[in-house]
């Protein structure tokens, strides 16, 4: 009986691998089968080449690849219930996510619930089912690939969910999910393809293209918006902040006004608000950026890297436990309300309504986000990025300063009018006429 030599066996083995038989068990089966068949035919007097050709022909038009395909299909047949569950969860989460996205775009209420349910069933039911199925159907040396794909996809889904819902921790989750996909899954996937591929250079290049795409998405995520727009917003923020500096010295005007008790206490109130807002802004920047308060005081917004993150600002402004040193946003709102009352008292009652309408901070109005009624603080500060929060705080400061200036000018002009009969030169001249 003829026996194939080592080279011939190696040749057949390579041929089988080349046709994409990745499963070791199946490879062993087929190798033995082909070798035995060739040996038997060689016993009948055929040459190795002729016997080889004849044996391969028997595999049919689909060839070896089809044997593997067929094996996979038979091995991985889910039972009917599993199929139904997997299918219905896949379909449900797709529909929920689609509906949620449309609701979100149209600003209809209920978008949040739909998106959370959709992403939840995708990440916690459908993807695990898929992983279980993949692990069962493929050889064990591929399980790292499937697990990394599962973990990466799950984290990415949760990250996207958190991002859409503006929940804290979104960026970290999303980044780590995509990082796992880019660093583990894609290389493993293409390495496996590369090993068994007939045209290695094509596989290599598609693998590289896939990696590049993922890296590009990474890059785009960190850029987030065009640099021009970014710079423009930062400039506005810095401009707002520096406008307040113009109010540093109102002493001269205060000297000309009567130092009534009301005016003195109003001035104190303003300086309290200004101090608190400046402290708050500095703390927000320092904590977001991880720098000292001194550095935070000097830095301009366009140099603050964390200007688009809202996790820390929202935490500082809304979480009571962290606000020992600085006011939270409701306490600040309370101070501003007290200022508004004091400020209005400086005007005669017939003017108060008009002046009140002119004051730009309207805490009593109702605001809406995606059809949900929210209060002033939530609308202006909750989940607003650092740059927006700092700008809003600057504009509150500016509004208070402006109102203060108007009160001051009004008081001075009033006192000028009332003093005129008793000796003011211009006024007495006018009287004598």
């Amino acid at each position, binding site marked *: 009986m003829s*026996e*194939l*030599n*080592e080279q011939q*066996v*190696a040749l057949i*083995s390579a041929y089988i691998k080349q046709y994409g038989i990745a499963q070791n*068990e*199946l490879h*062993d*089966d*087929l*190798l*033995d*089968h082909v*070798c*035995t*068949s060739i040996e038997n035919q060689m016993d009948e007097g055929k040459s190795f080449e002729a016997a080889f050709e004849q044996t391969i022909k*028997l*595999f*049919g*038009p*689909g060839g070896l690849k*089809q*044997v593997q395909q*067929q*094996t996979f*299909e*038979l*091995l991985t047949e889910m039972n009917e219930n599993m199929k139904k569950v997997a299918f219905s969860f896949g379909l449900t989460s797709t529909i929920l996510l689609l509906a949620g996205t449309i609701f979100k775009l149209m600003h209809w209420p209920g978008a949040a619930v739909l998106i959370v349910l959709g992403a939840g069933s995708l990440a916690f039911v459908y993807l695990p089912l898929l992983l279980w199925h993949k692990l069962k159907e493929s050889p064990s040396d591929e399980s790292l690939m499937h697990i990394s794909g599962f973990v990466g996809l799950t984290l990415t889904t949760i990250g996207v969910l958190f991002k859409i819902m503006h929940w804290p921790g979104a960026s970290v989750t999303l980044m780590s999910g995509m990082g796992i996909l880019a660093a583990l899954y894609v290389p493993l996937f293409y390495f496996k393809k590369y090993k068994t591929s007939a045209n290695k250079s094509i596989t290599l290049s598609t693998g590289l293209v896939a990696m590049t795409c993922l890296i590009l998405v990474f890059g785009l995520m960190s850029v987030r918006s065009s640099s021009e727009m970014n710079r423009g917003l930062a400039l506005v923020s810095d401009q707002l902040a520096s406008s307040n500096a113009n109010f540093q010295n109102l002493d001269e005007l205060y000297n000309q006004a009567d130092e009534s008790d009301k005016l003195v206490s109003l001035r104190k109130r303003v300086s309290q608000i200004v101090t608190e807002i400046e402290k708050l802004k500095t703390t927000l920047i320092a904590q977001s950026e991880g720098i000292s308060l001194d550095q935070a005081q000097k830095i301009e917004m366009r140099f603050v890297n964390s200007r688009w993150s809202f996790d820390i600002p929202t935490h500082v402004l809304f979480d009571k436990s962290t606000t020992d040193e600085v006011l939270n946003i409701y306490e600040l709102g309370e101070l501003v309300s007290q200022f508004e009352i004091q400020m209005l008292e400086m005007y005669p009652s017939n003017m108060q309504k008009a002046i009140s309408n002119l004051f730009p901070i309207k805490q009593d109005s109702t605001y809406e986000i995606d059809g949900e009624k929210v209060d002033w603080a939530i609308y202006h500060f909750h989940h607003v990025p650092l740059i927006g929060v700092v700008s809003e705080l600057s504009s509150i400061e500016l509004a208070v300063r402006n109102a203060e200036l108007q009160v001051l000018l009004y008081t001075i002009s009033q006192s000028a009018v009332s003093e005129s009969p008793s000796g003011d030169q211009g006024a007495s001249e006018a009287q004598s006429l």
Partner: protein
Amino acid sequence: MHKKLMYICLMYSNELIKGTLKTIVLSLLVKKGRMYGYEITQHVKEETDGKIQLTEGALYPLLHRLEADGLLETEKENIGKRVRKYYRLTENGNNQATSLAAEFHEFSQTMNRLLNNFSLKPSYNV
């Protein structure tokens, strides 16, 4: 076209063979104890005078599935530079083989009776 060639058989239609493949393999293993893939194809070919020829495309997927289902177990032997995998029935597989064979036997009897009745019908007209 592809599917048709999966089960090369010279006499019987594809549909007929497909449902009985499992029965054929399991019954064969009951008789022979342990066999390797090529041996199974050759044996079926010889026993049926070439009327049924299993192909690799049909056989190996089935063997792997039966192994995964716990009906078969394998043992490996080195043959020169390669490994040969012998398949043998587990206890579970043995039971299954018996019941499948019994079922098929009954089925073929029923079919016979049914078809005989049909073939008698024309004789009324003659």
